[in-house]
């Protein structure tokens, strides 16, 4: 086993996920099976291989730098229950 339940739980918490005991057991099985599958990569010599990118990326520059106003900001704010004026308000960030 590559990762034990404590390690998987730590990763889950980094992702802001709190798992039940049953979920954690499932996640441990899943992640270890998955990492075993990825061990296949070790059969390949990847030393001189470049990471993938679409060749056309060179033909796809950023869009023209024009100001296009988005007027429907109220619709964005209306979707949140954490709004104060025209801001989003979140609970306390600093830990005690």
């Amino acid at each position, binding site marked *: 086993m590559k990762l034990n339940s404590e390690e998987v739980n730590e990763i889950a918490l980094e992702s802001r996920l709190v798992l039940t005991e049953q979920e954690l057991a499932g996640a441990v099985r899943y992640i270890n099976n998955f990492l075993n599958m990825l061990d296949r990569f070790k059969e390949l010599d990847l030393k001189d*291989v470049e*990471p993938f990118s*679409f060749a056309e990326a060179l033909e796809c520059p950023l869009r023209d730098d024009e100001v296009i106003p988005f007027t429907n900001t109220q619709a964005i704010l209306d979707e949140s229950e954490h709004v104060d004026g025209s801001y989003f308000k979140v609970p306390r960030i600093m830990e005690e």
Partner: protein
Amino acid sequence: MELYELNLWMLIEGLKAGKFTPSEIFTSCKKRIDQCEENIHAFITRTDDNPQPGSNPDGIFSGIPTVLKDNLCTTGIRTTAASKILGNWKPPYDATAWKYLKDAGAVLMGKVNMDEFAMGNTCGNSAFGPTHNPNDISRVPGGSSGGSAAAVSAGYVPFSLGSDTGGSIRQPASFCGVYGLKPTYGMVSRYGLISYGSSLDQIGPFARTIRDLQLVMSVIARHDPMDSSCFREKNPDFTHHEDVSLKGKRVALVKEFQDFTLDAPISKAMNRTCSVLEAEGAVLTEVSLPVVARYAVACYYALAMSEAHTNLERYDGVRLGYTVKDAAGVKEMFEAVRSYGFGSEVKSRIIAGTCLTEPSRCDEYYVAATKVRTLIAQEFARAFGEADFILQPVTPSLPGKIGEVDEDEMKGYETDLYTLPVNLAGLPGLSFFTGYSGELPVGLQLIGPRWSDPALLDAGTVLERQLGSPRIANGGVK
């Protein structure tokens, strides 16, 4: 014949000739939905009680009903990605592909079911329950765009849109007996598509004829300044030609796939399609894709999960969707929202993606996968030096029963071998109908080099001419 039974091009021509009205089409489709929806459960949100008229009465799709996979943003209409975490979110903007259709006059009948965040291949991994295959309602319609495929198959609408990250258009098209195109990466704007794996995701159409796919592509395959990966210079021509030929075209089978087991109806369909191709003057050949055959599945899931974990970080309950009030702190709020809001498959993939991209493991897994992807793209580029198209299955088996669960997820992932590599290399893939095995349709897949989408659909026209078009599924109606 009822109007809902007509294909898209027939509806457009009939409207032009004044044979019927948009209102009659709408009524017929709505009646069909009312007749079957209890059996199929394709919709997450119906809008046909309050139809959204297209914005252009003179557009090519004026008065033509359609549905969208529920990961395409629609202004003011709930968009869920089949997840609890999005709650009743109503986007403040339209996905570009939908905007183009709306500008062409299309009428939205609703948003349809999918696997949560497009993660799955059954359409059963949805917070809104499973969709059923209209050809046999005890079976899955495939996924993740199962609702989009089922809606076209059952005659709800003549065409729909879905998205394909690793087969999510082609596999449900095959299972439901319709045509589905996963366009070249960059052919259709992804703006307004809820992201899963951004370097793999692509929007594409479902329809009951190839000609209908060409009509939809002629509207949605346009540059969009809001998606920098969307092509600029290319000018694809999706005009339908009846007299196209495959004479002299080299169609390859993949050498390494020959040893893999296929269900009998699928291997029969492969043989029959090869005979048709030869009779049409195509030259059957063979290409070798050893890296694809052995490493594509691992490579795909490593990249898809890594990208998914990043893309799904944005769901924290602050700006949209499900949230909690009065959390002790922001960390507690994020944990409460995400732990409740995401389903188990999504959580597993987020955890896996987080694991693979951690600094201590990144080179071993994520970076290695991006290099394997390069080898896969190079292998396809070489293969397309020797062949114009590659013919292969979409899946090794016909659709399973709803509720059947494979305890070993990795075994389930391996069944996606025929679809995932296409996304890794950014290629176009056409899922086409070949006939029926009992009540169940059997589809196969034709793949072309990047930007060959129009030629791929021309090849599809030849295959449809010889293999026949699918019928409308009975939708569980006794």
